[in-house]
């Protein structure tokens, strides 16, 4: 079964086309990377999946359920590009808010929050207010929020942004752990080196069009992701 199925997505802002007949299938249990230069339409696609912005045309299904229905997001977690929260909330308040919104019972929420705090190395900061956190700490809190409740689908928009190498390593471990449990992870990132290490399938977007998609090794044919990405984008630019 497909975790995410996008068929012929068109997204227009006034006259500008951001996503142009974009289709993508993401298998359950995979770690899928969406790549593309700035302005390619990656974040628009991610936001479209979550029905955060309306699409102009097409259909998106999440685990077989139409994306605009609340049921489609029942076991889905989303990390935005710049995770932020009400500045007066403490880290624990934020995690509790997520647990409640995900419908976790008090006991399960307590255990899951404790686990996330340890796994993400933010234990001891639970009473710190969001406004006092560094960018890296905040990103760890964001990842903590999305992993609690054992989600089936995780959508991570630039998860490595603002993190030091240790933070990146910690988050990759968390992603691998959650994927090992059978969850589907969709990552939208600029950091090609990290995407190459963690994903098995990728799609490359530019100007709202899908330029390449499939198994990373089969697509790259022995090249590294950076070279392959550069080649695809360059060829697309020349073709235009």
């Amino acid at each position, binding site marked *: 079964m497909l975790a995410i199925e996008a068929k012929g997505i068109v997204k227009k802002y006034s006259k500008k086309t951001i996503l142009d007949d974009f289709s993508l299938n993401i298998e359950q249990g995979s770690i899928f990377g969406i790549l593309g230069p700035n302005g390619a339409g990656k974040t628009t696609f991610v936001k479209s999946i979550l029905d*955060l912005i309306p699409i102009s045309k097409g259909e998106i299904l999440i685990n077989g359920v139409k994306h605009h229905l609340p*049921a489609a997001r029942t076991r889905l977690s989303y990390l935005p590009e710049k995770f932020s929260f009400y500045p007066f909330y403490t880290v624990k308040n934020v995690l509790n808010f997520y647990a409640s*919104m995900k419908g976790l019972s008090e006991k399960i929420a307590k255990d899951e929050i404790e686990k996330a705090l340890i796994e993400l190395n933010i234990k001891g900061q639970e009473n710190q207010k969001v406004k006092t956190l560094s960018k890296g700490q905040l990103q760890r809190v964001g990842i903590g929020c999305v992993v609690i409740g054992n989600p089936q689908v995780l959508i991570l928009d630039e998860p490595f942004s603002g993190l030091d190498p240790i933070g990146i390593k910690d988050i990759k471990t968390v992603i691998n752990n959650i994927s090992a449990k059978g969850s589907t992870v969709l990552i939208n990132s600029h950091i090609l080196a990290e995407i190459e290490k963690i994903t098995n399938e990728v799609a490359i977007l530019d100007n709202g069009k899908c330029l390449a998609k499939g198994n990373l090794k089969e697509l790259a044919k022995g090249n590294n992701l950076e070279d392959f990405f550069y080649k695809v984008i360059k060829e697309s630019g020349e073709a235009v």
Partner: protein
Amino acid sequence: MRKNQLLTLFFNGIQKEYRSKTFLVMLLLTVVTLIMMSAGANFANNFIQDKTGEMIKGIPGVDLMELFYRMISIWSGILAAFFGVNSIKSDYDYNVLDQIWSFPIRKIDYLITRLITSWIIVISYFIISLGLGLIIFKIGQQEVQISFGIWRSLSIDSLFMLAMIIISALYSLLVPKTLAFICTFFTSVIISIANYSFINFTITSETFKNITATKVVGLIMHYTLPRLGTLSQISKQMLTGELSNNLTAELAHFGLTLTIIVLLLYKIIKRQGA
């Protein structure tokens, strides 16, 4: 599950707003006003005697609680506009709307929860103020009580506040916050003027003879927007118990027009996205 999520969102809304400086300033202003009113009444009492020469309590013809109630009903309108402006806009400002919408909740549920939260905060202010009024006037040796008329009037004023919250929330999505607050204030004044002008309006053969553009605009506002002026008038009538308006028809009109504005608000947030 949906009930729990909406409750979480409701408490989140309360946490978001209760620390608001405006709310605290309003409460402080209320206490200061109460103390001044109580002191003023006490001072006046020193000069008022009954026929036998005995000093009497209170000022004849002035119900302190009603006077105070009328004052806070004006302030509550301001507070309602303030909270309405913040109710949804602050989620955009804190950049959390996309996270909230990524949970399995409907956007309309989110919208209604946010509006109701703001409404409950403003009504709470109203009730807290009345309670404070009762305590401070009693301390000041005034004979006061919260009459049934005040409760009846409060029920109508609470609808006025709900309308102010919804109108200001709508403006907050279209223009910057301060401007949204000012626009809400002017809209309420203009609607009220239209309502007072056309409250006894009936269509006759003479109606269309003296029609002007201003009159047309006024009529459109009177019939298509929530009648804030009429509500204020009903609220005053509730205090005295002399109701002259058709309450059922007015409430039906209010409910219908306000629902249309909420649907418009819903369309806008859906279109704007997170």
